[in-house]
Every structure is written in structure tokens, then in C-alpha cells.
């Protein structure tokens, strides 16, 4: 049986003629698949490469191997039930995704979040940023060949995972932020654990930086590789450290502060040349700035409620169900139907470790969203990959793909 009888349409190379140069059709250059299964593509990413020997003539990313239809699934769930779905998109920074979504819901519902919850959100998001950058550093260095850094980074990450487990019950997919505040208050022992981490981390970051920054091979492999100009980066929607590495001073935490980020004193490090090395330095310095923010948040952490008192949005404490009829009714309504959002649309974005993570919510007035769209930073950053990889070697391609820090769960959703 032919493919058409199966009902399968074959996409021939002819249809892709516009993507590769004419030399591919004469056999002068080679078309190679840096396939979805590859240790250096940081997930299931397929890069269709046209190679002239070892240099890349064109690079066409092919994504969608991790597409799980999160946005479609979210249309069927109440606003609170979407929170665990958001964890699974950018799975290396789940709390950032939580925050982006939850802020959008709170904006839609016009709910005020207590200050304690905001500070805890900042604290945990910055810890998430550190863990995410640690994974990035470990895998990026591993790809380029500096294999020892990998396990050192994961050793520190374990400490933060333990903190997340203490707080949310889960190491990675915490779903700790809920519309209105937090799931529950911080447990005892949290402050001590975070302070211990803050004591040991600065010298560890210095260690990682020294391992790589003083290494001439590292400098050879990362300097002047994968340059993207600031103008191109802005035009293509690149955000986060990939944008700041080119010298564009854009950090949503500073430009459009959310969740009390304006109460904290920190910097967004900038690069100069927009190469792999500058992006690397940006992220290393960002880890240090995140430690500063965590320190400030912990020192200034106010007491008070961890969840809004608006019972239409936030569930009442369990003890109240024993004696309050209203609490019981609120609990029942929230668990069965969920809260109804007013008709309208909002877009909120946060600075995730990868860039601008945005959440667009369109409500039709019912308890389930009409449309949830997540603006994934890795999606836009990856679309600029062909710009950065003109004429580089395959080995450099690996370095560049690592430097833009993509997570395929984020790209594909």
C-alpha cells in the first residue's frame, strides 16, 4: 500500500526547497538530521542541518516532539486545576510558570495577594532561577566537554530540591502558588535550610566560574561564537539572558515589576558582544543576584496571611468547615464548579530563567477559561537560532544551542 492509501501525506524535500540552499539539491552540501534523540539538543529537538563539510550552511529547527496540548487541556479545567499543568511546561523552572499563570488569574479576578505570599513567591522563584541556571550550566558545560561541572551543579540542586520538598511536598513540580496566594504557609525549618544554602552557595558559584572562566579551552569555544546583534534579538522576540547577553537592558522584574520585586535591590547583568561567553557570564552573575534577592526576602519576610481572604477565590481553612455554613458553601462551590472569572482578557508576563514567560487568559465569564495561551520564552529564543548559526561548525552549533538555554517542554507545550 502506498502512503496515500494509508491516509498519510508525505512531505517531500521539494516542499522544503525554500529552507535549504540550492547546493543541497546538487549534492554539494549534505543534509544531516541532528535528530530528536540527541544528547546535546537539550530535549527532543530536531535540527535539519545543511552542512558544507563541517560548517553549517542552514539550520532549520523542527519542533513539536514534546507537544502535549497543554493549552487545549487547560480549556477544560477550572482555573485552579490548570496550575499543575503549568509546572510541566518549562520543567526546569516550574515555580516560575506557576507564578506567571497565577498572576494572570489574580489580575483577571482582581484579587489582592497578601505581602507575605508575594515575598515567598519571590524567594522561591529566585531559588528556582538558581536551580534552572545550575542545570543549564551543567548541561552546557557537559556538551562543550567540561564534564566535571555537571555533577557539581546537581549536587547543589539537590539542596534546593530538598527545600522545595519541605515547602510544597514536591521536588520539582511544586504547584505551590495558587490563585490568591500560596497553597499553605512555610513550614518550620524552612528559614534555617535556606540560610544554610545561602552560606554555602556563593563560594560554589565562584568555584564553577573559576573552573570554566579561567579555562583557555572554554574561552576558545565560547568567545565570538553565536553572536546575535541587539537589534536582531529584539526584532526576533528573544528575551532573558539571551537578550541581555547582547547588551539590551530588559528584565521584566525591573521594567514592569510584579509580586513586589520592586522592594528588592538587585541588578540584571548585561553582556557586551552577544556571544556564547557573554550569555554564560550573564547567567553566572544572575545566580549571584538571585542569592542576594533570596537573602533580602528572607530577612524582610513579613508575617501575616499566606492567602487572600476573598473566599470567592481562595478556599477557607479546613477548621472553619466545622462551624461555618458559609465556609462550607464556599468550599463546595470552589471544589465542584470553581470560581467564575469576569469576561475579559489579560496578559501577564514574568521573568523566568529563560526570558519572558507570558500567560494570556481569555475568559468567557464561566469557571473555565475560554483560552489559555502561554508565551514561552524558549519558543521565541529558539526561533532566532538560525540567525546565530550561519557558517559555524557543528561543534559550535552545540555550544550555541546550549547557550540559548531552551527547554523543549516550554517550546512545545
Amino acid at each position, binding site marked *: *500500500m502506498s*502512503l496515500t492509501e*494509508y*491516509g*498519510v*501525506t*508525505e*512531505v517531500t524535500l521539494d516542499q522544503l526547497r*525554500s*529552507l535549504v540552499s540550492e547546493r543541497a539539491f546538487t549534492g554539494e552540501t549534505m543534509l544531516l538530521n541532528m535528530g530528536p534523540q540527541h544528547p546535546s539538543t537539550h530535549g527532543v529537538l530536531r535540527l535539519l542541518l545543511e552542512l558544507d563539510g563541517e560548517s553549517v550552511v542552514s539550520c532549520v529547527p523542527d*519542533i*513539536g516532539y514534546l*507537544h502535549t*496540548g497543554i*493549552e*487545549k*487541556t487547560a*480549556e477544560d479545567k477550572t482555573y485552579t486545576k490548570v496550575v499543575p499543568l503549568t509546572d510541566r511546561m518549562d520543567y526546569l523552572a516550574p515555580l516560575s510558570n506557576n507564578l506567571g499563570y497565577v*498572576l494572570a488569574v*489574580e*489580575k*483577571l479576578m*482582581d484579587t*489582592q*495577594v497578601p505581602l507575605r505570599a*508575594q515575598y515567598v513567591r519571590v524567594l522561591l522563584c529566585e531559588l528556582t532561577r538558581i536551580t534552572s541556571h545550575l542545570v543549564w550550566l551543567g548541561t552546557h558545560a557537559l556538551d562543550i566537554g567540561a564534564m566535571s561541572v555537571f555533577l557539581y551543579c546537581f549536587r547543589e540542586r539537590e539542596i534546593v530540591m530538598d527545600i522545595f520538598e519541605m515547602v510544597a511536598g514536591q521536588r520539582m513540580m511544586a504547584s505551590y502558588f495558587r490563585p490568591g496566594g500560596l497553597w499553605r504557609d512555610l513550614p518550620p525549618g524552612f528559614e534555617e535550610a535556606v540560610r544554610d544554602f545561602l552560606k554555602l552557595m556563593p563560594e560554589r558559584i565562584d568555584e564553577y566560574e573559576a573552573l570554566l572562566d579561567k579555562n583557555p579551552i572554554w574561552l576558545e569555544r565560547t568567545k565570538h561564537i553565536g553572536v546575535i546583534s541587539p537589534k536582531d534579538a*529584539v*526584532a*526576533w*522576540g*528573544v528575551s532573558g539572558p539571551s537578550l541581555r547577553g547582547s547588551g*539590551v537592558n*530588559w528584565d521584566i522584574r525591573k*521594567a*514592569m*515589576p*510584579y*509580586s*513586589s520585586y*520592586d522592594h528588592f535591590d538587585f541588578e540584571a547583568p548585561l553582556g557586551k558582544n552577544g556571544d556564547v561567553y557573554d550569555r554564560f557570564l550573564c547567567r553566572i552573575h544572575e545566580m549571584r543576584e538571585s542569592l542576594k534577592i533570596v537573602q533580602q526576602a528572607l530577612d524582610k519576610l513579613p508575617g501575616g496571611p499566606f492567602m487572600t481572604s476573598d473566599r470567592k477565590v481562595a478556599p477557607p481553612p479546613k477548621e472553619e468547615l466545622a462551624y461555618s455554613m458559609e465556609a462550607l458553601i464556599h468550599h463546595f462551590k470552589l471544589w465542584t464548579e470553581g470560581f467564575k472569572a469576569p469576561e*475579559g*482578557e*489579560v*496578559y501577564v*508576563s514574568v521573568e523566568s530563567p529563560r526570558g*519572558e514567560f*507570558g500567560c*494570556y487568559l*481569555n475568559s468567557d465569564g464561566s469557571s473555565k477559561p*475560554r*483560552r489559555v*495561551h502561554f*508565551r514561552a520564552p524558549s*519558543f*521565541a529564543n*529558539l*526561533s*532566532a537560532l538560525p540567525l546565530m548559526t550561519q557558517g559555524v561548525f557543528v561543534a559550535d552549533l552545540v555550544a550555541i544551542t546550549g547557550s540559548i538555554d531552551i527547554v523543549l517542554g516550554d517550546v*512545545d*507545550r
Partner: protein
Amino acid sequence: MPPKDIGMAELAQIVARLKTRFSDAIEDAREFRGEFTVRVKPERLVELCTFLRDDPDCAFDFLSDVSGVDYYPDEPRFGVNYHLTSMQYHRRLRLKVRVSGPDPSVPTVTPVWPGANWFERETYDLFGVVFVGHPDLRRLLLPEDFRGHPLRRDQSAVQEEVQFTHNFEEVDRTKPYAKS
């Protein structure tokens, strides 16, 4: 907490300027929760976007997002939202285009912001909105041979028939792997 001081007064001024200058292109302009949404006629979209990017008081140089919405059963059925960000003035604006199905089409904004490339491909893939003039309008997230546009509200996400023992042979016949 919603961000403080998002320059609502200046945004309102920009929207007012748009309404006077492009009065025939703008169908609606509203504000909700501090965000301004301007609904534009599809034919005038690129003109408006170019103005918003190049005008020194607007300077919306960063396209944050392009996404589609299916308003079924409301008409016009499809909406495409463009979220613009001004890095200079720290402001956001939403442009919206509403088109009817079943073969909706909207001009592409890739000449204005090249970054719209993948966002428009994704909207085409999931909603079936054709972006006229797009340099490379192919499916992005779904396989090339996928039929249908799953984020439309009248289509379910799953399009394939599930293979059980009672229909094993039937479904097996539709699979494209090599059979002996």
C-alpha cells in the same frame, strides 16, 4: 499583584491618537484591568503595526506574543491577538483582529517584527488561520501530515481512532510502518 504605574494615562493617549489617526481602521478600543485592547480591521493591520513600531512616542519594538482565540459560537469566530511591548517606555498594548471562519486569513506582520514568524505558524497550526504573505507557513508543533486544527472549539484534541483488540486489524491497516 498587578504591576504599579503601567503608564495608563500615556497608553490612553496613544489609543486616542490611534483612534483619530486611523479612525477608519479601528473597530473598537477598550480597557480592562489596566490593559488596552484595540480591535483593528485585518486589512489595515500591517499599517498600524508599522506605525506603532516606528512612531517615537509609541516605540513598540518588541512583539511579545501572537496568539489565536476561537470565540465559537460568537461571530466573528476567530481572534488573533498581538501583544506589543515598548522596551523604551515599559508599556504594553494589545491589538486584536477578528475574522470569520471556516478559512480565516489575516495579513502577516513578519515584515514589521520578524519574530512573529513562529508565533504565526503556531496559530496557523492550531487554529487554521492563514497568514497571507508569511515566508514559510507550515505546521510547527503538530506533525506535517496532521489533519485538522485542534484548538478550534468544535474539534477535539484526539483525532485518531484508538486501537483495541476488536478493531486491531482495521486500525493497523492505516498505520504507515512497513508490513511484511
